[in-house]
């Protein structure tokens, strides 16, 4: 199963049409709407988690784009601002996956993004605020 959180932007001309229901009907995808709003100029914004097989997911996203819907990847990642990190180690107390760990004997704090689950616990735990949440590459689709 493939799953991603997406931000969908509906142009004012499309906002009244039933669109997302066809993701289920025609593409065998499930979705969970996390947020939805129609803005003052009638454009619609929806944040949803879309789940299905990788192929169906891809076809579903293509269908949305064909309807004039702008699709963005809403997933986030944690980045370390190297200049701010003092290698104190405080973050390693809260990191649940071991993505932040101490290399011994140098006592350097290493950050392995592959192990990071984006739980964000390190963000407020870092005394110098060296850990940041950022959107992953928007040019994903």
């Amino acid at each position, binding site marked *: 199963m493939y799953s991603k959180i997406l931000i969908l932007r509906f142009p004012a001309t499309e906002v009244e049409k039933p669109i997302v229901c066809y993701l289920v009907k025609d593409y065998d995808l499930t979705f969970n709407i996390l947020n939805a709003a129609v803005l003052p100029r009638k454009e619609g914004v929806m944040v949803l988690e879309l789940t299905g097989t990788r192929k169906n997911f891809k076809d579903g996203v293509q269908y949305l784009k064909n309807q004039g819907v702008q699709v963005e990847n809403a997933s986030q990642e944690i980045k370390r601002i190297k200049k701010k990190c003092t*290698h*104190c*180690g405080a973050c*390693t107390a809260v990191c649940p996956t071991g993505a932040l760990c*101490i290399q011994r004997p140098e006592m350097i704090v290493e950050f392995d993004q592959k192990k990071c689950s984006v739980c964000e616990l390190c963000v407020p735990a870092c*005394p*110098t605020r060296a850990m940041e949440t950022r959107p992953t590459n928007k040019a994903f689709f």
Partner: protein
Amino acid sequence: MSAMKNYKINKTYQEINERIRSGEVVVVTAEEIIDIVRDEGPVEAARRVDVVTTGTFAPMCSSGAFVNFGHSVPTIKTSKVWLNNVSAYAGVAAVDCYIGATEPCEDDPLNKVYPGEFNYGGGHVIQDLVAGKKVHLKAIAYGTDCYPNRMIEKEILLRKLPQATLCNPRNGYQNYNCAINLSKKTIYTYMGTLKPKAANANYCSSGQLSPLFNDPYYKTIGLGTRIFLGGSTGYVTWHGTQHNPLAKRTKKGVPVGPAGTLWVMGDLKKMSPKWLMGVSIQGYGCSLAVGLGIPIPVLNEEIVQYTAVSDEELFTQIIDYGHDYPNGISKSYGQVSYADLKSGHIKFRGEEIPAVPLSSMVRAREIAEMLKNWISKGKFLIGEPQFTLPA
């Protein structure tokens, strides 16, 4: 000082400084000296090595700066001062104030949304100043005949201030607790995040590199000791608040719990934002991470023996911050060595628990190396104390 003792090696401050001036001085760090003393013995080591450098970089709450921001027209005798909306103590003189590291900014939600983030405070103001950033000053006054102004607002820059002096009443604690949490919920302390049921143990010392661990009886440290402070030169000016030389010690003389402290000062204008960093301690408050290093002159073989202390010989106590500490209960749940703590795990009640540092060893080493470099190049002379700290 043990001037009466019969040492094989005797060096004076003047002799060591002469060697620094002539470029013949031999300087090593407090980590490098360990093997030298082990391999060559204290007498030979004391003959060969002149200075041992130490270092530490960690949040040190009892820090702050005196700022004189110059007179305005009409004149003002400020009674309340804010720097970037952080309150500074103004009951000093007309245009002097003291910005303390732990003062949070006025509109901070504190712990109302628990645990608070404490994103900006006095420590951050100090870092912004040394980074050369503009800081907004606001001050109010009641007005007098000689100082009629009631309010001023202006942008200040560190380099344009008449004077700014870092003045930290308690830095460089000689040893500190290893904190655990025996309660059933996560707590947020000045010792970092402590997970319930002793799921982690946090400690804060650079161990064998820590200044006061390397001169445990303060035989070379006192008023006038020249030090690395905030990236520049500073001085030890007094014993710090809560200085407690009577703490329990090992046979080698190092305290097994919090003991001595330092009062340090230096010219803020010469310091750097890399070595004075504002910090936000979740659920606790704001502070300032201070870079501090002391060069220890090897006056004799006894001094060099002290500097050769290693993490295996340095111990601290496991203290519960869930219940005991907030209730003023002084109880140790065991003694652990810094070698064990730095290994990443300690044994507690038969289980291995992660040991988490709060003090940067990377930065501590960098300080000891910088100090070594300054002294080797003749840029930094050893300051002879007028008197040493109470021992």
